[in-house]
């Protein structure tokens, strides 16, 4: 594989950049693989990469219905954080933060990881207490957390509404300084390029039609480009999880919902951090191009449409304007939607299934992008070793029957309620 470096950049400049190697190949599916990963999104590509890198399993195929990185890894708001209270989520995400910090070097691809900090705003004394508790839990797990009072928040984000006559005054906030953003497409492409160079076949425009299962064991998959035998199959299909589960005769604790995001026209640098509104569901950051990147609630009803509905967007942006009134002056440049695999407790599932050789990775709700490296790493471990790693032991499929829910948000079984 051609290394991306300043020297290669200069060298290729002499030939007008016409002679760069392809970043990944376009292979024809082979008859058989050791592992087939369904879903060429961030998590699937990361899984294939860590299977090759950490476990030396390179007879791997990624099967993608569309094009790689065209799903939620290309449709998110690029926020990376580990500000969770529960141990399972905190330790898993903080492990991921380490992978994020090393990712550009590791993948030889600039993912533009920018640890600019995230601030969750508090709008009441009770919320300050809850944040103090969450911050303490985070610090006990080795995650950085700083409780800010109103004055400290004002110093960092003076453009927020600090006037006296507001419905939701800012009392303070909880900050994770090491959180941040990254360039989402580069994450997918970086993992794809490295996985490809280690022998993984990335097969695009190939839809999974069915599964070949006998005596409780998976033997392969049926696709629109023919049958493929596989010793092990991993599902990394986010919003399409329920569709594939139906083909497997499984009913999962997952509902598929639509989440929208939008960007404004580009403006000069105004916001250094990621900021979330505490009296609703709204978050904002500013991209390197200057656009304000915003998002919030789900549309609120089951949906497979990869485009959103205006009432939710209006609701979300109303919250945004309540928090930062200057946003009302901006023109909207683009809105988009992605379909989310909403689990019933708001936490993901990375586990084996009752079918031997079939592994499940789903339930990412609002937080799939930031989990990309940790999800890929632990899923690769689960597939390669045929047992869960301690980092994803809590993300079991049977926790719903045993009562070991990880209900970070306290929303119960209706994580889609807005």
């Amino acid at each position, binding site marked *: 594989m051609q290394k991306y470096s300043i020297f290669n950049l200069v060298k290729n400049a002499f030939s007008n950049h016409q002679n760069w190697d392809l970043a990944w190949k376009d292979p024809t599916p082979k008859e058989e693989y050791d592992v087939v990963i369904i879903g060429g999104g961030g998590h699937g590509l990361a899984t294939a990469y860590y299977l090759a890198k950490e476990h030396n399993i390179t007879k791997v195929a990624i099967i993608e219905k569309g094009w790689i990185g065209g799903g939620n890894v290309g449709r998110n708001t690029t926020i990376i954080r580990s500000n969770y209270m529960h141990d399972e989520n905190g330790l898993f995400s903080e492990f991921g933060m380490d992978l994020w910090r090393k990712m550009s070097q590791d993948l030889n691809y600039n993912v533009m990881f920018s640890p600019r900090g995230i601030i969750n705003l508090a709008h009441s004394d009770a919320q300050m207490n809850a944040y103090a508790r969450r911050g303490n839990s985070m610090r006990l797990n080795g995650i950085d957390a700083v409780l800010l009072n109103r004055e400290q928040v004002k110093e960092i984000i003076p453009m927020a509404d600090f006037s006296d006559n507001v419905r939701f005054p800012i009392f303070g906030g909880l900050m994770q300084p090491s959180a941040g953003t990254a360039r989402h497409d580069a994450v997918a492409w970086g993992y794809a390029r490295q996985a490809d160079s280690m022998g993984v076949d990335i097969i695009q425009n190939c839809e999974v039609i069915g599964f070949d299962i006998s005596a409780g064991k998976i033997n392969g998959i049926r696709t629109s480009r023919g049958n493929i035998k596989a010793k092990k199959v991993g599902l990394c299909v986010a919003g399409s999880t329920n569709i594939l589960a139906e083909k497997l005769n499984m009913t999962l604790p997952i509902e*598929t919902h639509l989440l929208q995001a939008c960007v404004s026209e580009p403006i000069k640098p105004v916001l250094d951090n990621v900021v979330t509104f505490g009296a609703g569901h709204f978050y904002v950051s500013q991209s390197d191009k200057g656009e304000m990147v915003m998002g919030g609630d789900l549309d609120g*009803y089951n*949906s497979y*449409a990869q485009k959103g*509905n205006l009432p939710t967007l209006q609701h979300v942006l109303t919250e945004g304007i309540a928090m930062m009134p200057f946003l009302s002056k901006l023109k909207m440049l683009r809105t988009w939607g992605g379909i989310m695999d909403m689990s019933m407790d708001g936490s993901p599932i990375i586990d084996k299934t009752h079918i031997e050789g079939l592994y499940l990775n789903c339930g990412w709700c609002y937080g799939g992008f930031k989990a990309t490296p940790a999800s890929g790493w632990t899923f690769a471990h689960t597939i390669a070793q045929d047992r869960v790693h301690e980092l994803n032991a809590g993300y079991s499929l049977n926790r719903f029957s045993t009562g070991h829910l990880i209900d970070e948000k306290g929303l119960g079984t209706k994580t889609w309620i807005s």
Partner: protein
Amino acid sequence: MLYINCPHCGMRSQNEFSYGGDASVKRPELNKEVSDQEWDNFVYNRKSLRGKHLELWQHISGCRQWIKVERDTATHEIFRTFKADEEVA
């Protein structure tokens, strides 16, 4: 914007409604032994169909009645609406 034909009030915008999830889910009978699996299916497990989906909505800013709506989850087309106690053929 979705327009939902409330069987009690007529055609209204989605802003007046709140969503209540899959309407085909049945609570296990109380007068018999209920297995953990049956509770699981009732509380957590959902088919989340792509296509026609029968679901509960509440006309929260109107008559406050729960209703059933048959809607396509891929196109958002609404086919039929029913009162909560109406049997859907």
